[in-house]
């Protein structure tokens, strides 16, 4: 019942209120996080039929009776409030802000060095081989001298 995501629903959001970018303060503004331990409040178990109705598995008529009637009314009023949120749209200026903040070069795959492909040319292979032989000879000479 409450599953009603409709991105194409008509605008009633906040666009009209904010037609131009506001001056942005970079400090963290709102602190709406006021998490409280649930143990103190969440001591009321909802009937499984109400959960099933909210999950769209039962029709409203099945729960609109007896003890669960109050719950149905409660969730319907809450749904009306959430409906407004479902219709909210991104303020129009945000798209322009994002586009202007994008890097000007095209995105490219960033591969870590250990995953990159190595191309070993014959000259490089001979050089590496010669270097290894030199190091091995030097190490042997040092070992024998010691």
């Amino acid at each position, binding site marked *: 019942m409450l599953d009603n995501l*409709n991105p194409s629903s008509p605008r009633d959001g906040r666009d009209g209120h904010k037609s131009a970018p506001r001056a942005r303060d970079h400090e963290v503004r709102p602190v709406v996080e006021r998490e409280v331990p649930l143990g103190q409040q969440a001591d009321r178990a909802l009937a499984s039929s109400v959960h099933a109705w909210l999950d769209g598995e039962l029709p409203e008529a099945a729960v609109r009776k007896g003890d669960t009637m109050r719950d149905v009314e409660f969730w319907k009023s809450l749904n009306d409030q959430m409906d407004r949120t479902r219709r909210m749209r991104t303020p129009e200026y945000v798209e322009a802000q994002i586009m202007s903040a994008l890097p000007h070069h095209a995105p490219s795959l960033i591969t870590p060095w250990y995953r990159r492909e190595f191309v070993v040319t014959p000259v490089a292979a001979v050089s590496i081989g010669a270097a290894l032989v030199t190091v091995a000879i030097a190490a042997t000479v040092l070992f024998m001298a010691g």
Partner: protein
Amino acid sequence: MTESEPRVAAEQDTDQLIIQRVLGGNRDAFRVLIGRYSDPLYRHALCMTGSPDVAEDILQLSFIKAYQHLAEVRGRFDAWVFRIVANGCKDWLKNIRRSHLSYDEDDQPSAYATPDEELDRSELRTDLDGALAALPASLREAFIMKHVEGRSYEEMADLLGTTVGALKMRVHRAREALQALLEEKYA
């Protein structure tokens, strides 16, 4: 061909095609992806943070990150960018909790920007936002995805990388917590 025709054509293209265009140097094609997905992502960030300003910031940073790493997209772009936004919201909530362990609720600035918006909001709406903010982030996220975004449990499980059973449990707990917080006044 009229001027608007290329844009209309671009809007009908698949995400993958648009991504190829952007990777090929057509930076402006990214605008189509923003237009296509910004609304549901903005709503998610708004419900998670309770603040339009923060939601806009998270949305902007997420799309910039998505652009920078566009070549790494494997699978669905919308699911990928959703995860970026969802992680941005969770990071913000973690940081805000860490830096505001003690604060006076009366001092907090309003989450809604203009006086008109304030007037538009009913008391229940205000209390609902307060109750949502009281939920742990994981319960809030599950509740919002189910009841505001209207996603199925299967889709939620796919996006969040968890099981349907775990998400049902989170949504059920969130409902019960919200009802416990609000019903004294409204039921």
